[in-house]
Each structure stands twice: as structure tokens, then as C-alpha cells.
């Protein structure tokens, strides 16, 4: 008998501690994105009371990143939160319990119950979220994606971090700048079937053929490292042997650029490197002097991507845009008026802009981030 009573007391204590746990969590400050707890109902009434809050006042904007504890995702959330809160809106950051589409379905379902005004999601799987995102849109919620897209019919538009033309243009200008305006250059790509790689390479060829300032640059070879460090190293070494006058290697792949950077730096080669790389992997190779192999390189800025996503969410909610091609909206913080463009397959996207340059000046700050 005693043990039953004891059990009952303990279980009541368990429930009580649960209550206490929830209470303290929902009291956490709204700005605390890690706790991801904002009291929607309270915020709604608060914001409605203060009408001078801004264009987003009284609305709740949710963002669902890929997973918790990922610095790249945290930066996106940081940008998103900054813009929404500056405009008086309420942000709900809802991290899935792990980096799977299943876990994202769970949190999106919960957001539908809460009746948020918009959901921006970085999809862990393009297909798996389509049913739940369509449910969300049926419930009147404005759905957009950022960073990683879902299928076209499951969202209204997509905040794309890397427009093909913008990436190609930045890389062409970098090659021109680093080579000093003339000489041989080569590409170390991923696999020969990679769609994004081939799109960038084709766009680079077109840009260079179209403008006379690139006329003295000679693309001598394109090598494929298959995004394997070993093979990328081998093909870079082969390039150096075959083309002793090579001035620049452009590697628009994070694996390729890291492998090539090591080869060039170890060999003390006069050939320099640029491309798309992860700051954390490339920090030791980035520098303006001859001891470093990469003067600067590119990738997108996750904070700005989060900001763009926030502007898209706000514009969708206030009706400025519906996600149709050709519509425009303002993004004051980014200093650009964005236009929604067509994507392959009938869906639309918004391209963030030119990729972000990682230079010897800012690499120390970024290498710890991602």
C-alpha cells in the first residue's frame, strides 16, 4: 500500500516539476532564439496594442532551420530575427529535434496549430515536406523556403543563396583580378555531372566570351575532382605539371578548393587560387602574401540570407507579393529592391545577390562560424 502512495506522490512531483520547467521556459525573453520560446498569444495582444511597431506588428513569423546547433543555421536565424523584430513582428524559431524531414514535419504541424502568419523553412528533404507545407498554405499561412528548397508547389517562393549568374560573375572578376588581367587559368570542379557546377562553369564561359576585358585570359583545362580530397589533390598536381605558366585555378567547390589550396601552398607555387569555399576549412590558406595560396574566395552570407527570408515572409504576409514571377519588394537593410524570378519547372525564387567575399581581413571572424 505504502509503495502505491509513494508512487503517486512521486508522479505528482514529476508532473509538478514539468509544470515548473514549462513555466520558466515560456518566461524566457523573446530574443532568446536558442530557447525558441515566444508566447504567441501574449505577443499578439501586445503588438496589437502598440500600433507604431512597424509593418510587421501583430504578426507572427516562424522560421524552421535544418537542425539545432549548426552555426550556419544560427546565422540565418540571426538575420531573420533581426529584420522581423526591427519591424515589430514576433519571431518563432522552431528547431527540429534532429536534421530530418520527419522532425520538420512535426514542428511545422505544431506551427499550423499555433496559427502563425508565415513559415520560412530550410527543407531537409525537398519532397517529404510537400504534404505538410500544403496543409499550412491551406490554413492560410504564407510558406516560403530558404537555403534548401522544397518542391515548387509546396511553397510560394524560395530565397536562393546562389544565383548562377551572380556566382559566375564574381568568379570571373576574381580570376581577372588575381591573374592581373592576362594568362592561363584552369578550373577544378566536382563531378562532371554536377548540375550546379556545370551551370556555373557554362555561365563563366559565356561571361568571358561576351566581354573584351577577359580576352587575354585563356581557360586551358577543366579537371574534375569528384568532390573527393584525394582525387582533387591529384588533378591539381597534374595541372601544375602540365601548365607551368598557370596563373590562377578556380575551384567552385568546397572540397576542390580546400584540396587545391593545400597543394599550391605546400608547393609554394606562384599559381593562385579562388572559388567557393568554407571559411573554416580555408582560413589557413587565405592571405594576401606569397605564403598563402588563396587571396580571397566566395560563399554566400547566411545572415543576409536570413534577412532576405524575413523580407519575403513580411511581403507575403502583408500582400505585397504572392510569389508570382515579376513581383517586386523592398529589402531596406540589404539595400536592394528584389524581383521574383522564374525557376526551372515553373516555380519561382528570389536570388540573394552576388556571393560574399572572404578576404584576409574578415576570414578570422568567419572561420569560427562555419
Amino acid at each position, binding site marked *: 500500500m505504502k509503495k*502505491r502512495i509513494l508512487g503517486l506522490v*512521486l508522479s505528482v512531483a514529476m508532473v509538478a516539476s514539468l509544470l515548473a520547467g514549462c513555466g520558466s*521556459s515560456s518566461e524566457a525573453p523573446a530574443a532568446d532564439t536558442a530557447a525558441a520560446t515566444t508566447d504567441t498569444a501574449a505577443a499578439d495582444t501586445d503588438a496589437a496594442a502598440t500600433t507604431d511597431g512597424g509593418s510587421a506588428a501583430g504578426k507572427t513569423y516562424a522560421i524552421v532551420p535544418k537542425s539545432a546547433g549548426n552555426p550556419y543555421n544560427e546565422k540565418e536565424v540571426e538575420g531573420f530575427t533581426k529584420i522581423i523584430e526591427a519591424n515589430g513582428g514576433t519571431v518563432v524559431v522552431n528547431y527540429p529535434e534532429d536534421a530530418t*524531414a520527419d522532425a520538420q514535419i512535426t514542428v511545422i504541424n505544431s506551427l499550423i496549430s499555433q496559427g502563425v502568419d508565415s513559415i520560412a523553412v530550410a527543407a*531537409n528533404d525537398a519532397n517529404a515536406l*510537400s504534404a505538410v507545407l500544403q496543409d499550412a498554405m491551406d490554413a492560410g499561412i504564407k510558406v516560403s523556403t530558404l537555403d534548401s528548397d522544397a518542391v515548387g508547389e509546396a511553397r510560394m517562393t524560395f530565397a536562393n543563396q546562389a544565383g548562377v549568374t551572380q556566382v559566375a560573375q564574381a568568379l570571373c572578376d576574381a580570376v581577372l583580378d588575381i591573374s592581373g588581367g592576362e594568362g592561363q587559368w584552369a578550373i577544378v570542379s566536382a563531378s562532371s555531372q554536377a548540375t550546379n557546377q556545370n551551370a556555373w562553369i557554362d555561365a563563366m564561359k559565356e561571361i568571358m566570351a561576351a566581354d573584351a576585358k577577359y580576352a587575354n585570359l585563356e581557360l586551358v583545362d577543366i579537371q574534375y575532382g569528384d568532390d573527393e580530397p584525394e582525387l582533387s589533390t591529384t588533378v591539381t598536381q597534374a595541372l601544375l605539371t602540365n601548365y607551368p605558366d598557370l596563373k590562377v585555378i578556380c575551384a567552385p567547390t568546397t572540397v576542390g578548393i580546400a584540396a587545391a589550396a593545400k597543394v599550391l601552398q605546400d608547393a609554394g607555387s606562384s599559381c593562385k587560387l579562388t572559388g567557393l569555399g568554407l571559411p573554416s576549412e580555408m582560413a589557413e590558406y587565405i592571405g594576401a602574401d606569397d605564403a598563402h595560396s588563396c587571396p580571397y574566395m566566395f560563399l554566400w552570407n547566411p545572415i543576409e540570407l536570413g534577412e532576405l527570408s524575413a523580407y519575403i515572409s513580411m511581403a507575403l504576409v502583408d500582400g505585397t507579393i504572392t510569389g508570382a514571377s515579376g513581383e517586386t519588394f523592398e529589402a531596406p537593410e540589404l539595400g536592394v529592391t528584389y524581383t521574383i524570378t522564374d525557376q526551372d519547372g515553373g516555380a519561382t525564387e528570389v536570388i540573394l545577390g552576388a556571393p560574399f567575399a572572404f578576404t584576409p581581413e574578415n576570414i578570422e571572424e568567419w572561420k569560427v562560424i562555419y
Partner: protein
Amino acid sequence: MAGKSGREINATPQNTLKKSILSWEGILVIIFLAVLVLCRILSPNYTLNNVLREMPKYLSEIFLFFPMAYILMLGEIDISVGSIVCLSATAGCLASNAGTPFPLVILIMLLVGGLCGVVNGLIITRFPELPSMIVTLGTQIIFRGIAEIVLGNGGSVSVTDSASFRAISKRVGPFPYMFFLVVICAVVFVIVSVKMKFGRELMAIGSNRRTSLYSGIKVKATIFKAYVIMGVFSGLAALFLTAASYGANTTTGDGFEMDAIAMAVFGGIATTGGKGKMIGGIIAAFIIVCLRIGLGQINMNSQLILLIIGILLIAAVILPNISASFKAAKKKKSQA
């Protein structure tokens, strides 16, 4: 009360109502009600409609819980079920995309699940010296590995015929179809476990395998059947999961085995076998589901929710031990 022999008989039946409230199952019912009240207070959106709308993913896990409870009662375990769900969902999506009629797709999913269960069951009954934890750890990797190879680049497949899948995720009022199926399964699994020979045999084997063998129970056949049922129900879970996401990917069903085991353990079903009631597990399953939905609605950090479920589980396992040691101490005292 003096018996025939003049001995004093102490084991008079206690007040049955009091007894049933203070049983583990009674406590679970109280916790369940407390969870509902708590969530309703915390979240203004915690309505029947919303909770039922968010429930399907968790209901798929409850399909896994039913046979998992049987396997635990046997004193065995199956941690490969999440991978079976993944493989079965993959097979179903590919079959559907190849133009297979929908009823046949359902059959294929159940068959693939059942086949995985046969593999588990065969290995475990043929090599009784191997712990089932290790065997199913191996098949967990193998089944998901096969799905990953089949899915290839991108690791994801979506169904082109999403209309058929969407049809089975429809609802009657606020209740999804699968909710009724869960209720029917719950009734069947409870009846089998308390009234049928199969259920009694499970308990007997879980309590003492050797005695069961000598008393004529076909131990191997019973274990084998339990694993096959587990496989078929994994296929069923896969079917409803696919209906919610219109496809399969390499992470489909990831971690489901642990959720199913958690439901059973919280419900008082011991992993050592021979202990626990189906009904306790079912209440526990709904406690976990309703709590997760409620905490999700107040945007509690997902990791924090997992933490709370973890604490509940540890408490559920420790409680009986504490009360047992109290009882033992009391007995010692009264003897001294």
C-alpha cells in the same frame, strides 16, 4: 478470518476501486489527465482538432509500440524497426511510381516489413546464443543500408500518385482514419495478451524460458511470430508515414524504435520480460504523444522536450525499484 485449519488468512481482498486507482495503470491515467490539463493551460491552441491533426506521425509510432510490447514481454528487443519502416516506405514509393495499383502497394509495404521481421526472427531463433539487441542492431544497419542504396543519389523519392496516399490520411470529423485503426489494434492486442494462448505464452517465456520450454510451449515459434508481427506493423507504420510525407528518404523512421520502446517502458512493461500490461503501455503512449504535442505548441526547444521524456522514462523505471526496496526494508524491520 479463520480458515479451515484454524490459521489466520491475511490475504483478504482489498477495496478494488482503491487498488485499481493506485496501480501503475491507475497512476498513468492520472498522469494522462494531468498532462491534458497542463497542456490546455499552457497552450491556447491545445484543442481536440489541433491535437488530432498533429497526431498522425505519432500514431505511426504507436503501431510500432503494439508488437514491440510483445517482444519486450518476451524479454527480447527489436531496434531495427525504424530501418524496416524506411525500407518498407522506400519499396512502397518505388512500387507506386512504377504504376502498381494502390492496394498492391499496401500489400508490398506490409510484405517487405514482414520479410524483414522474418529475417530478424530467423536469426534470433536459429542462433539463440546471440543477444537480440546485437542481431537487430546489425539488421538496423543492413535494412537502412539497402534503402540508401536503392534510393541512390539524393536519398529521397516522392510518390507521383500522391492522391491515393492522401486518401488514407483523410479524416472523419477531426479523427484521422488511422486513429480508428489504432483503437482497433489496441483492443486486439490487449485481448490477445490477456485472453489468448499466444499472450499467456509470451508472458511465460518472458518470465522463465526454460520452464516454458519444458512445459511444452513452442518457444522458438512464439518468438519468431512476434518478430514477424513486428515487421508487418513496421510496414503499416511506413504506409501511414508515407501518406503524411508523400515519399520516403534515408532518414524516414529514424529513431522510431526508441520511441516505441519508450512508450512500452513508461507503461510499465519491463525490458527484462514477463512483466507489464498492454493497457499500461497504451496509456503511456498517449501520455507521451499528448505531452509532446502540447510542449511543441508552446515552442519549447525540441531538445528540452526530449530531455523531459527521458526524465519521465528514468522515473518510470526507478519508481518500482524504490518502492520495492522500501517494502524490503519494512519487511526486515518487522522481522527484527
